[in-house]
Structure formats: structure tokens, C-alpha cells
């Protein structure tokens, strides 16, 4: 298909882009502005875009005010990374099986995975809590990692499966004829070829794990040292007042790792998410 737009059509398209971007980025901009303001200027009425005495003080003082902040950030990274690794260990072989092998109940399982995603973690918090008590893993990293992985696996399988289905079956058959075992084929043939798809699944899992850890950390962990950033950030809530500028500064610093990963790997994401959409 060839598209030729008129100038006003281009105008409308860019206007739509602009609106969407403003909608998405405005909170980030506000967070940045708040983090730069002194605390007493935050609630000034009328609202002013630029207030006097803006600076990066909050980025320095936050480390003193909440001494464990670096620990929370590291916890967040550690939990999200562990969730990703654990989830991938299950996603890769499972996605291959769902993509390639015929077995009874395959489609039913895939449907069930989607259903799990629809239910979501919050509904299952109480049964999960009881499970954690029984397994004696309450207040450990495990309590936050295991459910995190469990809830990201279904999406990961769906994502990676569509990618794996594009790999020609003959590649596996050739390896099979040459005497390779299933695991050998997975390791030496499928995983290297599917790397772009695996990266996409990994990023999607990491971002989800980073975002969803609040719920599990809040319910399954009460040890301060193990808290991830979203929970740790509550330390900025004082008895009398909330230190908004430091809170926002900490949030932005906490988002940075994900942002960096996303920027570095975004070409994989675009390639991977659209993979299989069009027959080549």
C-alpha cells in the first residue's frame, strides 16, 4: 500500500501524537519539576511552572533523609532481575513446547494462562499469603520473587511462542536427524535464533516485575532492609508532612534503570512485538 497524505492530514497525525505524548509525559515532567522545587514552593497557588530557588538539593538530601534508599533501589533491581531469570527459565522451554509440540490440552492451557492474567495478583493475595506462611518464606526475597515470576510467565509464553512459531520446523528436524537431543536443539539451535524474541520477553518481564513488586512487597514482606523502592519510598511520608520533592527525586532515580534498559534494547522490542504479524 502506498500512502500519500495531504499537509493537513500530516498536521492531524502529528497533533494526535502530540496529545498522546503530553498525556503520557506530563506526569514525568511534573515529577521532575516537583523534585527540583524547595518543599514550600510545591503547593504554591496559583500554579507556576518555574518557581524561585529551583535546584538539585533534593537529589542530595534524599540519601541522608532515607539512609536505606540505595538499598531499596538495589532490592528493586535484584527482585526484578531474579523474577526475569526465573520466569525466563520457565518461559523458554514452555514457549517452545507450546509452539512446536502437539499435546492434549495445549490450547486449553494457553487459554488458562490468559485467564490467569485477567484475574491478576491482587485477587490471589490472601491464598498466596497462606501459602507463604506454610512454606515459611514470608519476609524473604523469595516471597516477592516467586509470585512475581508466576504472574509474568503466562504473558512471556504468549509473547515468545509467536516468535518461535516463525522458526522453520526443518531447522529442528535437521538437528534431530543429526542426533541432537531436544535439550541440545533448544540450547544450540532455538535459543540463539530466537534471541531477539527472548530479549523482548525478558524486557517485558523485567518491566512488569519492576512495576508489580509493590503489591507483593507490601503484603509478603515487613523487613525494612528487603523492601524494594516502591515500598521504601514510603519513608518519605513523615508524621506531619510528606517530603514530596525528595520522594519525586527518588522515584525518578528508581525509574532510571528501566529507562536505560528500554532505550538500549528498544530496537529489539519493536522488531519482536511485530514479529510474526506479517508473513515474510
Amino acid at each position, binding site marked *: 500500500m502506498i500512502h500519500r497524505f495531504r499537509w493537513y492530514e500530516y498536521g492531524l497525525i502529528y497533533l494526535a501524537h502530540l496529545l498522546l505524548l503530553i498525556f503520557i509525559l506530563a506526569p514525568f515532567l511534573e515529577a521532575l519539576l516537583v523534585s527540583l522545587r524547595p518543599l514550600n514552593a510545591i503547593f504554591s497557588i496559583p500554579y507556576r511552572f518555574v518557581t524561585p530557588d529551583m535546584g538539585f538539593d533534593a537529589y542530595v538530601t534524599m540519601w541522608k533523609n532515607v539512609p536505606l534508599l540505595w538499598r531499596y533501589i538495589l532490592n528493586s533491581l535484584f527482585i526484578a532481575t531474579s523474577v526475569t531469570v526465573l520466569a525466563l527459565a520457565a518461559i523458554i522451554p514452555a514457549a517452545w513446547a507450546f509452539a512446536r509440540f502437539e499435546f492434549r490440552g495445549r490450547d486449553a492451557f494457553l487459554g488458562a494462562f490468559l485467564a490467569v492474567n485477567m484475574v491478576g495478583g491482587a485477587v490471589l493475595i490472601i491464598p498466596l499469603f497462606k501459602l507463604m506462611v506454610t512454606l515459611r518464606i514470608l519476609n524473604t526475597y523469595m516471597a516477592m520473587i516467586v509470585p512475581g515470576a508466576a504472574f509474568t510467565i503466562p504473558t512471556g509464553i504468549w509473547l515468545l511462542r509467536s516468535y518461535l512459531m516463525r522458526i*522453520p520446523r*526443518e*531447522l529442528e*528436524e*535437521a*538437528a*534431530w*536427524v*543429526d*542426533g*541432537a537431543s531436544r535439550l*541440545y536443539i533448544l540450547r*544450540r*539451535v532455538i535459543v*540463539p*535464533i530466537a534471541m531477539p524474541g527472548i530479549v523482548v520477553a525478558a524486557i517485558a518481564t523485567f518491566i512488569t516485575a519492576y512495576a508489580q513488586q509493590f503489591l507483593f512487597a507490601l503484603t509478603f514482606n515487613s523487613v525494612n532492609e528487603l523492601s524494594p523502592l516502591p515500598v521504601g519510598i514510603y519513608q518519605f511520608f513523615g508524621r506531619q508532612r510528606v517530603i514530596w520533592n525528595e520522594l519525586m527525586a527518588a522515584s525518578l532515580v528508581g525509574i532510571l534503570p528501566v529507562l536505560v534498559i528500554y532505550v538500549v534494547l528498544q530496537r529489539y522490542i519493536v522488531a519482536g512485538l511485530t514479529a510474526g504479524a506479517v508473513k515474510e
Partner: protein
Amino acid sequence: MGACVGQLNLKDVKKSFGAAEIIRGVSLDVDHGEFVVFVGPSGCGKSTLLRMIAGLEEISGGEVRIDDVVVNTLPPVKRGIAMVFQSYALYPHMSVFENIAFPLRVERRPQAEVEQRVRTAASILKLDSRLHFRPGDMSGGQRQRVAIGRAIVREPSVFLFDEPLSNLDASLRAEMRVELVKLHAELGATMIYVTHDQVEAMTMADRIVVLDGGEISQVGTPLELYHLPQNLFVASFIGNPKMNLIKVRCEKVDDAGIEVALPEAKGTINVPVDRRRGTKPGHALTLGIRPEHMTPDKSDLNLRLTADVVEHLGAQTVSYAGMSGMQEPFCAVHKGTAPVRIGQALTVGINAEDCHLFDGKGRAFRRRVDLARLAAAGDI
């Protein structure tokens, strides 16, 4: 290369998917060192049969033996076969060297042996200078050679080829055909080759297996299939352009042959074939004559035709003309640049000894052809 044994026996081999029978009882014996081509139209089951021999498809019934061992339930690697796929099935993330070395890596062979065997295979296939390339940087013909190299390093008793040349363009295909024949002579291994292209089958095979609807229609050398097709299917499948098949009526049956009358009183011709009990005057038969067997002079029967389409190929001229008793136009090949024009009448002569005759069920009457004499005369 190590000594290859390479005997393959199929006994009443069957394959069905649910109620659908894809392979309906195939029996075949392939000797050591033979180049056997499975040929047939798409959907005839030739690839399925190959995959059953390879161990990629389950065998529903019958027996597959390789080197006198029943391999029905063995995994491919234990069958002593190597397979080359239509799409080459090269691993895009590995170098040519690693692609060829793959089967040896699976067996965890020592590095020195891997090096040596890969280099031997590469030199046979003239890939020496390209071992560090990735498959993506190579042409189709080179990729196919890498795929063959991966089969060679395993030193299998039987090579299986699944339409290996159909992804190549015409000139490269002709080149690779010659190379494969040379390779076969060099390795002396048994090769089973699947193709839908009857030219590939005719040029490469020691023996051709023509498959039709999951059954063997005929097995024979290329010349046997060309001169003595046992049925209408083989007769029309082998040869290009296709054999002309004309509906005729049986006039007279005697020891000299069978005399048949062409429709619309175009004449009669006495075809020298062995008679068969039950064939009587009045029966509907099918007369077959190959387009290349037209003689301009001293023929047994002259046909006056009007060409609808004429193709001038330089070395020969092909004409197509409407003819009663035929579903397709009557095709004739004239030597050189013949003065044949569209819409103009032309006369083609046919000789009785070139004719084929088939009964109402499509079975051929035995022609009196001496294959040894034909081969000696170089009439290929």
C-alpha cells in the same frame, strides 16, 4: 570417507493420518550405491515416504530396513541416514564450518577429528575458502552445498534428499545436478532423492520410482520408464512435452499387434504390442505417441492438423493443434526451425513402432522394444 553399506528395503510400508491413507503399501529394494529418485506430482506422498525412511514421520504399517536392521522405531540418528532438506535448514547463527560440524559436535568428537572431517567434506564440495562465512552471506547453490556437507561428515549409509534443488534457479539447478551425480560417483553411497521435476529424475537416477496417490506406479531405469511405461500415469508424467494420448477403437488383434482406428476416420495403425486376453475389436483403447517421435517422411500414418500455437525454440519447433479424441492439444516437435505457422495445415507422420497402447484401465500393452539395443544406439 568410510565404507558405506547402504541397503534399504521397504516392505508394504503404510502411512495414514486418521482415516486418510497417505502411503498405501509401498515395497521397494534399494541396493548399495544406487541413486534412486522418488518422483511424482505434489501430494503423491513422495516426501512423506522419504520422511518415514528418515524417521521424521511415524510408520503406520509395514517395515523399513536399513542394512538389514528394522528401523521402524529407531530415532533418525540410529538409522545411519543423513538428510538434506529443501530449505537447506542451515543454522543462521553458525559459520559454515560449525554448520557442517554440527553432527560431529552432537557426538562430542575431539576437535582435531572435527577439523579434519569438516575440511575433507569442504574440499569435496569446494567450500574450503568459505568456511568462516555465515549462511546468510552465501548464494543458494553454496548454501545447498553446505547442507550437503553436513550430510557428508556423518558418513551415513543412506543419503536422503528432499527436493534439494527446487529453491534454485534453472541454470544453477542444472549445474548442481551435475555436481550431485559426480558426488554420488565419488562417495559411492546410496542416495534417495525426492523431486517433482521429471528432468531431475531422468538425468540423475539409476532407478526412478514413480509415485501416484501413495502407491508406486512404476519402478525402473529412466529408459525403461521412457520406452516402456506400464500405465497412462507414468506415460504422461515422464517426458516433456507430454505424450499425446488419443482415444482410439480396437479394430483387429493378432500376433503382429493390435490395429486401432483413430477417431473421425483419420486412419488406422497397427501397433506392434503383445496381445492380452480379453482385448477384442470394438474396445476403447488409448494410443500414445510422444511429440518428439514425429517423422516428416516414410511414416505408417499421416495426420493432417492445423496448428493453434507454435513455439520456435531454435533447435526445435513445437506445435500444438486441436485433435478429436484428445482432451489436450496434439503436440508435435519438429526438428530445427520448421516452417510451421499458426492456422496453416501441417502433416505429421507417426510410426507404429513408436506408439504406445493402453487398455481401458490405463494399463499398457507390452511394446516390442529392445532396451539394450536402444541404449546402445544412444537413443535417449
